[in-house]
C-alpha cells in the first residue's frame, strides 16, 4: 500500500473539514473493501477518513413511527444480534447475515456496502424493497434520497466530493407486509451474488389481495435495479402462481446483465425470474405471519 494519512474525526463537522483539506479521501468503516482496494492499487487516495468515531454513524434507533435508522458504520453483526430487528425486519437480517463470513460481518456495514456501490451489493435489493432512503451529509447540510437513486454505475454514485453517507432510513412497514431477500451463489457461503433479489408484498387488511409490492434485483445491470413495474403489476391482484410469474417475467425483462466469471447473460436472466418468483412467495408467507 502507498503511504497514506489516517484521520479519525469524532464529529460530522470534523469529518467535513477533513474532506475539504485539499487531499483526496476515502472512507474507512469496516475496511473489508477499501483496505484491499488500496493494497491492490485499485484505488489511490491521500488519506483515509475513519468514520467509526462519529456518533451519528455508529448508532441505530427506531423512530417514533416504527421506522429504523441505521448509522452508516454500524457493523452487520450488531444489527443481526438485535432481537427486535430480527423480529420486525427479517429482510434486513436476510442480507446482513450473508455478506461475507463472520469476520467480515464483525466490521462491514450498510454504509460501506452501499458506498462501495458494487452492482451485486447484497444489502441493496433488500433495502430498496423495504423502501429505504439515505441521508447524506456535507458542510452545506443534509439531503435525503431514495436508495435506488444513489447509484450511477459500477462503483459510481451521486456522493459529492465533500459528502458522506450518514445513515440508512428504513420507513415504517405497512401492517400486513412481508419482505424477503434471496441470493444465488454456486456455494453455500462466502461468494458474490450471481443474482440477488429483494421483494416486499403489502396485503390488504383481509390478507386476500395485494395492495402493493416492491421488487429490486442486483448483479444484472450496472447498478442495483428497482423494478417498479414488477411491483405495480401486482397491485390489486390476488397472490397466485400466475400473478407472481407475471411479476417475475417483468423483473427478468428489466435485467440487462453481462456474461462474466460468475454467470452468463442467459443464466442471470433465468435466475432473475426464478429468484423473484421465490422471493415473492417467501415475502407472502411473512406478510401472512405479520
Amino acid at each position, binding site marked *: *500500500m502507498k*503511504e497514506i494519512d489516517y484521520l479519525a474525526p469524532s464529529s460530522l463537522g470534523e469529518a467535513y473539514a477533513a474532506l475539504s483539506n485539499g487531499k483526496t479521501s476515502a472512507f474507512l468503516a469496516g475496511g*473489508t473493501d477499501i483496505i484491499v482496494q488500496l493494497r491492490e492499487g485499485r484505488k489511490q487516495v491521500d488519506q483515509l477518513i475513519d468514520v*467509526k468515531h462519529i456518533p451519528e454513524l455508529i448508532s441505530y434507533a427506531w423512530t417514533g413511527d416504527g421506522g429504523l435508522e441505521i448509522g452508516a458504520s454500524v457493523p452487520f453483526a450488531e444489527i443481526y444480534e438485535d432481537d427486535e430487528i430480527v423480529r420486525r425486519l427479517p429482510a434486513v437480517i436476510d442480507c446482513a447475515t450473508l455478506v461475507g463470513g*463472520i*469476520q467480515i460481518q464483525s466490521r462491514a456495514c450498510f454504509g460501506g456496502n452501499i458506498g462501495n456501490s458494487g452492482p451485486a451489493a447484497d444489502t441493496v435489493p433488500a433495502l430498496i424493497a423495504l423502501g429505504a432512503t439515505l441521508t447524506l451529509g456535507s458542510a452545506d447540510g443534509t439531503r435525503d434520497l431514495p436508495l435506488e437513486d444513489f447509484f450511477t454505475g459500477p462503483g459510481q454514485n451521486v456522493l459529492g466530493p465533500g459528502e458522506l453517507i450518514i445513515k440508512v432510513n428504513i420507513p415504517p412497514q405497512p401492517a400486513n407486509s412481508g419482505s424477503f431477500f434471496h441470493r444465488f451463489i454456486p456455494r453455500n457461503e462466502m461468494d458474490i451474488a450471481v443474482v440477488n433479489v429483494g421483494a416486499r408484498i403489502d396485503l390488504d387488511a383481509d390478507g386476500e389481495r395485494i395492495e402493493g409490492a416492491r421488487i429490486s434485483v442486483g448483479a444484472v445491470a450496472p447498478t442495483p435495479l428497482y423494478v417498479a413495474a414488477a411491483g405495480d403489476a401486482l397491485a390489486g391482484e390476488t397472490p397466485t402462481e400466475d400473478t407472481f410469474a407475471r411479476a417475475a417475467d417483468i423483473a427478468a425483462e428489466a435485467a440487462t446483465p453481462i456474461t462474466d466469471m460468475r454467470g452468463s447473460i442467459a443464466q442471470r436472466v433465468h435466475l432473475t425470474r426464478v429468484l423473484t418468483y421465490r422471493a415473492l412467495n417467501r415475502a407472502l408467507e411473512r406478510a401472512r405471519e405479520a
Partner: protein
Amino acid sequence: MPRRAHVQTTLNGEEIDFLCEPRQSLLEVLRDELNLTGTKEGCNNGNCGACSVLMDGRVVNSCCVLGVEAEGAAVTTIEGVAEGETLHPLQQCFLEEAALQCGVCTPGFIVAAKALLDSEPDADEGRVRHWLAGNLCRCTGYDKIVRAVLKASEMEEVTA
C-alpha cells in the same frame, strides 16, 4: 522515513503501545512490529480467515484492519488463547482430532472457533460449519476441524 503513529492497545490482556505507519495492516503490525507470528497471512484480502484475531470480542480478519485502528481496542491473537503452559480446550482438541495438517489456517480457525464457543457454548454442527465458513483449509476437508470444535464445546472448561 514515513510518519509513524503512536497506538495504545490491549494485546492478549496486556496494555501495550507501538508505532506503525497508517498504511500497515494490523496483521503486519502483529507479525513485523510485535513479533507475534502466530497469526498467519493467507490471502491478504479478507477471504481466507488465516489472519483471524479477536478485536473487542469479535473475530475479524487482521489483514482488513489497520494497525492504527487498534487504538483503544482489546485484541486477542492465537498467542493469547492458551493459559500459560495449559492449552485451551480447542487447541487440545485440534491435536487429539488431528484437525490440522500444514497448520497455516489453524491459528485462524482456533481464534474464530473461540469467538463462537465464548458466545454460544452449545453450538451444534450446522452452526459450527456456518460460523467457520470464513476460514479456509486446503488440507483437512474440514470434518476433523468441525469434530475438534464440537469436542471442545463439550469440555467442562468451555461450557462452564
